[in-house]
């Protein structure tokens, strides 16, 4: 059992309590008001208090047994997926639908070791063609296909 697994419930409780705490901090600035005249902050503060309570219970409970379904993160896969979406965000408006789609699928596909470069490129190309036909011509999504070259 790794250290993370042993303290997982504590971390979980801490995270929930921290979110609750920030909700109270932020909510208090919107004006809590009173029951007769509720401010915008009343509800957030209430929720935050509830979250702190839940977090406290979780942190105080006995940690769960081992093997509770958590797998070690797969860094290669995670990096590829995050990069794929980020590339789409960056490229879609600047370069157009085709390069953004290709980059997204290509980079995403590289997240597994079994997928070879050529395979990823093939998949990217297929999805790109599909995307142009379906989304640009079919559903009229407002994107140039390739900025400055093809609308």
């Amino acid at each position, binding site marked *: 059992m790794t250290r993370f697994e042993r303290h997982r419930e504590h971390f979980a409780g801490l995270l929930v309590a921290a979110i609750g705490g920030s909700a109270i901090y932020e909510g208090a600035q919107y004006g809590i008001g009173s029951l007769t005249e509720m401010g915008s902050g009343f509800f957030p503060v209430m929720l935050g208090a509830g979250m702190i309570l839940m977090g406290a219970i979780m942190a105080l409970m006995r940690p769960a047994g081992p093997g509770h379904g958590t797998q070690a993160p797969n860094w290669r896969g995670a990096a590829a997926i995050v990069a794929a979406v980020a590339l789409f965000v960056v490229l879609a408006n600047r370069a157009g639908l085709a390069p*953004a789609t290709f980059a997204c699928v290509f980079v995403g596909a590289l997240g*597994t070791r079994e997928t070879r470069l050529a395979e990823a490129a093939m998949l990217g190309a297929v999805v790109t063609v599909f995307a142009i036909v379906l989304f640009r011509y079919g559903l009229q999504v407002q994107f140039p296909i390739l900025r400055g070259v093809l609308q």
Partner: protein
Amino acid sequence: MIETGFLGLVHGFSVALEPHNLMWCFFGVFVGNMVGVLPGMGVLSTISILLPLTFSMHPVAALLMLSGIYYGAQYGGAICSILLNLPCHPPHAVTCLDGFPMTKQGRGGVALGITMLAAVIGAAFGIVQMIFMAPYIARIAFSFGPQEICSLMLLGLLAGATLAKGSPIKGIAMTLLGILLSLVGTDVNTGNERFTFGQLELSDGLELVTVSLGLFGIAEFLKSVNAVKPEGTTSVRLGFRDLRPSRSDLRQALPPVLRGTVIGSLCSLIPGTGPTIASFIAYAMEKKISKTPGRFGHGAIEGVAAPEASTHSAVQGDFIPTMSLGIPGDAVMALLLGALMIHGIQPGPRLIVEQPDIFWGLIASFWIGNLILVFLNVPMIGIWVKLLSVPYRYLYPTALFFVCIGVFAARNEMFDVGATLVFGAFGYLLLQLGFEPAPILLGFVLGPRLEENFRRSVLLSRGSLSTFIDRPISAVFLGLCVLLILAQVYTAARSKKPPIKIPEAAFD
């Protein structure tokens, strides 16, 4: 009451049989059946991906299609469980226990045939139940004031958070988080901006698809990438003829199907206990009342028939609280309700009267959709089996693109795609910490109405919280909340062991 039900149904068929609606219903069940079979794809992520597509559609067609995905996936999920022992669809995890042994004995086709039969019977019962119960429940709810609605929502959220999978405390924490997320944006009562941190894009609040695709799309991909092993299906060859169960199979399977159906329909009425829990209860009960419990786990046909019937009747019954009260029982229903709200339709008891096209059209489409599914599955079983071998490494990059374009298309805002990525990473952290993200969606969809009704009730009572206990119906709901919590504390203190060993769902 029977007459209104009949008239409504006739009207519903006239709506659902319009070519346009029929087409979308077919599309929905087809896609649903497909994602049910595809390993690693879930109902929630599929509905979220297709949700933006429905913004430009007529609300009736949108709802028919999105619901079709939900019940269509149940047909596909059974194939996955029985033939591959892959519980890729939580309600069907328990079907693996006896379905896969049947496949190993060369009776996989019979198991699938019985599954179809169970599905049709279960679904038919669930739909009939909805026809008669939903308008009735809605009529009772007409008299509800903000206090009752508020207490009822609290009960629904609490049940959804604590009865579903995972730790109840964590479920409540996630529900609160969901409500908190729903508050982002401009406060309708005061005009103040809340939790926007100066971001202009956030002043309209977070988009439903941003939250759901982050939590159920990207977070799931992060979890499943490189964890889903490709399966060989070359050994499984099935044709149309193999599906036909023998007379003795039928005789053996019919009583469990009926029992499972009843269990499913009862479970569906309690928020939070959707099809997954129904199927486990049905299986456990079959095993308990069987004269030969030793056969279970070694290919007992009852172990396939009962849970499958209860799943399908619970899936249809799931729509009852959603459509009659506007209180979704699980994350899928929350998404459907969110879809209605995006179309400007206020969910609640008035929906059936004010939007008869939606309610009765939906019910009629259930009949049509289930019929289509049987015709899709019986002759095409061979094709679905082939789909089982599509590797996940091709699926998730493609799905990633659909997530991106779907979120963008919701309101032509690239900011939302970035926000989805943030939610995905956050959702993955939550999964690693053992949280179930589904209650977040429940809280997110119900949050604004909860706050509004809470404020209204306290305003009406001039700042007195006792108004929630003074009104009898509201007090009953709150009493049920207390009972629910006490029951949870009691069971938590008593036992630690689950009653039956469940094959760990690979992805859900």
